[in-house]
């Protein structure tokens, strides 16, 4: 973070002023390429202008902050304004997500494009309701059809903005949440015992269960 004491009124370079205006006008994050095209300037010049803006918008300097999300730049309100914004807009920044919605969102984020039946298969329960809520809240959207004709879903720019991500590639490796080999072994043992208890009455095949433990 820059030294906050250095905040001073300093005229911006013309290109930086234009870029700032474009960011103000645009509802979605805008990438340097798009900005360069609109300004009819080389990308390097726009990058320099963005750097200048970043200095101006250093946290604590203004009521707006400049954020790099979803592969572009966008202006957002400073968190200091949040309590007042809540009173003014009477709408929460983000209503809490239910566990089912979070799980569904995680599956879409990692496996996109993914269909509803596939989500249901992974979660082991019906996914209709969480998918509908996430669609409704603009966190996921349809992105075409699977080869079997089911609608497939992907995450939206709003998802990236709300979760402060540049792209879904920025998500951590999913396998890190797999249980440890010891935990898997314990789980397997428990399942096997349950399976054998259920199959009692049928001839028990000890060789088979030994093979798996």
């Amino acid at each position, binding site marked *: 973070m820059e030294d906050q004491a250095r905040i001073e009124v300093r005229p911006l370079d013309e290109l930086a002023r234009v870029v700032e205006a474009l960011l103000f*006008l*645009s*509802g*979605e994050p805008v990438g340097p390429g798009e900005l360069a095209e609109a300004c009819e300037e080389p990308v390097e010049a726009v990058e320099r202008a963005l750097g200048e803006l970043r200095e101006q918008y250093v946290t604590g300097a203004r009521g707006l*902050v400049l*954020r790099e999300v979803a592969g572009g730049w*966008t*202006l*957002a*309100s*400073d*968190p200091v*304004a*949040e309590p007042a*914004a809540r009173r003014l807009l009477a709408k929460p*920044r*983000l209503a809490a*997500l239910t*566990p089912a919605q*979070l*799980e569904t*969102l*995680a*599956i879409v*984020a*990692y496996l996109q494009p993914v269909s509803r039946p596939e989500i249901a298969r*992974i*979660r*082991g329960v019906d996914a209709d309701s969480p998918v509908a809520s996430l669609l409704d809240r603009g966190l996921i959207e349809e992105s075409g059809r699977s080869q079997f004709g089911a609608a497939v879903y992907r995450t939206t720019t709003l998802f990236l*903005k*709300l*979760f*402060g991500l540049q792209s879904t590639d920025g*998500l*951590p490796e*999913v*396998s*890190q*949440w*797999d*249980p440890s080999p010891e935990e*898997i072994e314990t*789980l*397997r043992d428990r*399942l*096997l015992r*349950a*399976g*054998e208890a*259920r*199959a009692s009455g049928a001839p028990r*095949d000890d060789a*088979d*269960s030994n*093979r*798996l433990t």
Partner: protein
Amino acid sequence: MLLAELELDLEVFSGPFDLLLTLVLRDVVDLLELQLAEVVVTYLDFLQARGELDLEAATEFIVLVAALLELKSRLMLAGEDDELFEFEPGEAAEELLARMLEARRYRGAADYLEGRLADQPEVRYRQAALPVSLRRRSLEDVDGAIWNPASLGRALGGLLAMPAKLDLRHIGSSRVTVGERLLHLRDLLRRVSALDFDDAVRGADRMTVAMTVFALLELYKRGEATWTQDEPFSQITIRPAASPAATG
């Protein structure tokens, strides 16, 4: 849900439909002994009694009964692909384990997302998007295939081609005419003094039998033959009108 209200009274089970499903899934009721046709008939009665068709419930019912039917037919064909749905305890456990691990992985990811969301600074973004009319579109935004002239050409070409003539040969057409049957009857009547209708149409299909009746009516109208039948569905005896044995 309407379907849950469906009360069944079957040989092996009596109670609501959804309970039956649960019991079948838990192997309490043997699917092999369950007459699915009875379930369907009960449902149809139920529909008639209600006097309205709830499409959603009907769809659900069809899906469930189809699933039961498939399951039952597989059970009845046991032996051929037993291994497909009869797991050894060990295999079932492995299958279940794989699923649990996958679910757990994404539960972990969900927890991560929840934490990440909570850690985000409380910033707000502008929510109103520009009206569509003001948004600038570039060709790159559009899936290239839509603008591919070759695909447009192919689509038009497909419309311009004459479709192949339909082959209707497999649709049977009636090849028998009243005229032919008239000749047939006259031919028979020339040789005998009395004729059994059954003999006149022996081995013939329904259409031919019908045409023969028409031919017979025609003969009667023209006064060439008379017929007698003692009672409905009994033998029909045909006699040439000129025959002295004719009784009218």
